[in-house]
């Protein structure tokens, strides 16, 4: 069985604005991160994959099916949009039952799957909780539960951790990793930490263009030897910021430990360090902006 998503030369326009520019990408099984700034085209790409938007040109194949075969595709995907919520007066169970019906599950299937899914996202004690009374984190977990109801081969999750507190965010990331076993989970986010903690494969979008696609280790390699740490006085900080991309700062009394990107080690007393995903991402984005 074909278990990958293939995009070939996908373009999408909104009037005169081009939201996606000739995107070609293969998304394999497992967790896949889609990284980019706000407005980079991530949501547009996610909506095309979720059959909610049409690509103007190009081809999209999901698990061997053309994305135009919407009914079949919708049976294979689960979608959690940005800011998921449902009717405030509905209870958790009612939301699952309603969306389960829309997903084509029969009554018996719903009766079996709903408790399983709510258990999985730790909402087993909240069957009667009204949507309007739920916290942001609970709603996201409910969103994941509803997206998993039809046991999809592809789970599309758009900006799921935005606005969550650190504890909820970690819990949510762990949940996504558990789910990613034997299915494709596409996680779209502008929060680099989410990708770093969960994804092996990533793609980076910048103003509608695909500027990186590959493994996280490959991304790190791009920035290898270009990340430095230096301890400077606070007075030197402004000059430092104007010359380099500063990816981190740690104040130590009157000194500041600065983590920055540099093509060569031109700064005195700086030492080279291993890049993390955030460093590599910022390095890549900076290169794109200079172009």
């Amino acid at each position, binding site marked *: 069985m074909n278990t990958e998503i293939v995009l070939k030369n996908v373009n999408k326009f*909104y*009037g005169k*604005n081009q*939201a996606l520019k000739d995107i070609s990408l293969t998304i394999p099984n497992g967790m896949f991160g889609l990284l980019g700034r706000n*407005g980079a*085209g*991530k*949501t*547009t790409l*996610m*909506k095309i994959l*979720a*059959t*909610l*938007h*049409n690509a*103007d040109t190009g081809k999209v194949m999901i698990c061997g099916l053309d994305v135009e075969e*919407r*009914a079949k595709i*919708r*049976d294979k*995907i689960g*979608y*959690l*949009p940005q*800011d*998921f*919520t*449902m*009717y*405030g*007066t*509905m209870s958790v169970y*009612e939301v699952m*039952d*309603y*969306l389960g*019906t*829309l*997903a*084509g599950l029969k*009554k018996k299937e719903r009766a079996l799957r709903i408790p399983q899914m709510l258990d999985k996202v730790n909402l087993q004690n909240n069957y009667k909780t009204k*949507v309007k009374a739920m916290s942001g984190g609970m709603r996201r977990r409910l*969103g994941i539960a*509803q997206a998993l109801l*039809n046991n999809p081969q592809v789970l599309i999750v758009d900006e799921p951790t935005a606005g969550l507190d650190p504890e909820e965010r970690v819990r949510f990331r762990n949940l996504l990793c558990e789910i990613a076993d034997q299915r494709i989970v596409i996680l779209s986010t502008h929060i680099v930490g989410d990708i770093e903690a969960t994804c092996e494969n990533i793609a980076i979008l910048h103003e509608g263009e695909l500027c990186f696609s590959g493994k996280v280790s490959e991304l790190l390699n791009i920035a290898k030897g270009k990340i430095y740490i230096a301890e400077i006085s606070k007075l030197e900080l402004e000059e430092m910021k104007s010359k380099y991309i500063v990816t981190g700062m740690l104040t130590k009394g009157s000194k500041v430990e600065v983590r920055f990107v540099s093509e060569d080690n031109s700064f005195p007393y700086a030492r080279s360090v291993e890049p993390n995903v955030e460093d590599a991402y910022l390095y890549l984005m900076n290169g794109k902006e200079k172009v």
Partner: protein
Amino acid sequence: MFMSLFLKECKIWCKSILFYAYIIILFFFYVTQMRSESAIKRPRPGEKEYGITYSENNSDIMNGTLKVLLNEYYNNKFVTYPMGFYKPVILSANEIKQVEKNISKLTGITEKDWKEKLDHYYESKNIKWSFYITKDIGYNEFLSIMSDLEKVIGKGSKYSAKALKGNAKIAKTYEQALKEYDEFLKKDKVTRAYARVFSDYMGIVLAILPAFFGVARVLQDKRSNASAVIYSKKCSSIIIVLSRCLAIIVMLFIPVLILSCFSLVESLYIAKTMGAAPDYFVYLKFCIGWLLPILMFVSMLSYFITELTNSILALLINSGIWFVSVFLGFDSPLISVGWNLVPRFNIIGMHGMFQEIFPQLVKNRILYSILGVFMILISILIYSIKREGGHKFYGKISQNFNNQS
């Protein structure tokens, strides 16, 4: 899948404040309007009067109109309903002269003579009315004079072609009153007459309240950010929209049926006391045939417009339609059908008149039922387009179809 979804949609309405507000308004309207309707009493020979009726006779129409005209002229206060609302018109000296010329034409006597006669009539008591249309004036010429008068007085006056019949009030004879009573008892079986008036009153509120439901249901998805999740599900647009629309129609129709049962029980009691054989299903027939098309059309029009625009524009449009239907689109305030959304028959009895308008009523109701179904079909189409992210057109309306990230 459809039944399951339909029941869930009904359940959504059961939790809605809007639904309970609808029931309260409907009940309030029913109680305040229907309670005042009383039955026709059996006429007895030798009574002083048997009420009034409207003559179809041209001579009665002409003479009745002349009487109304002279009354209004004498007081220089002409009643008009230009936008469906009462507006008294006071004429200028020049306009009065034009009216006077027309009165002379109608009566066939000189201005001086009829003025003297008229002054004498109003100043003295116990003088019999003695103004009649001259024999030289035929009905067509009469209509032409009325048209001239309307130009002077303004639209919606008692001289507009639609209103002329209303001027031909004549006293009912015993025989006419008895015939109407018999028809009320035997043909209308009492219950039918009440069912008509029930439909008349309920039609007024049903021509506006369902509009809120179409708007509320569509905007509920937008307000709750639920559209994207629902769009991405396997279920077809036909089933989603059809279940929603049917749930609205059914949930709005049930309270109407329940209220009709109250009215039915009352009319059954009246029928029983009058010795009539009632029609137990007449309310059901009228609710389905008369009220359901209004409910369907109004709710589905608002559903369609809201699906198209994602705004509350439908409320404005529906309010406009309601205003025109209830206040402007009638021939007579009490009985009116035509192609109006809200047919009027606000009289207990008058079986013969109802029989006359019945064929038009049927055509009218079929039209609005078809329009209601049509609205559902195009709502399905629009919903289906929206689920696919809209198509390749960009305008103010279609902005609702696309949401760029």
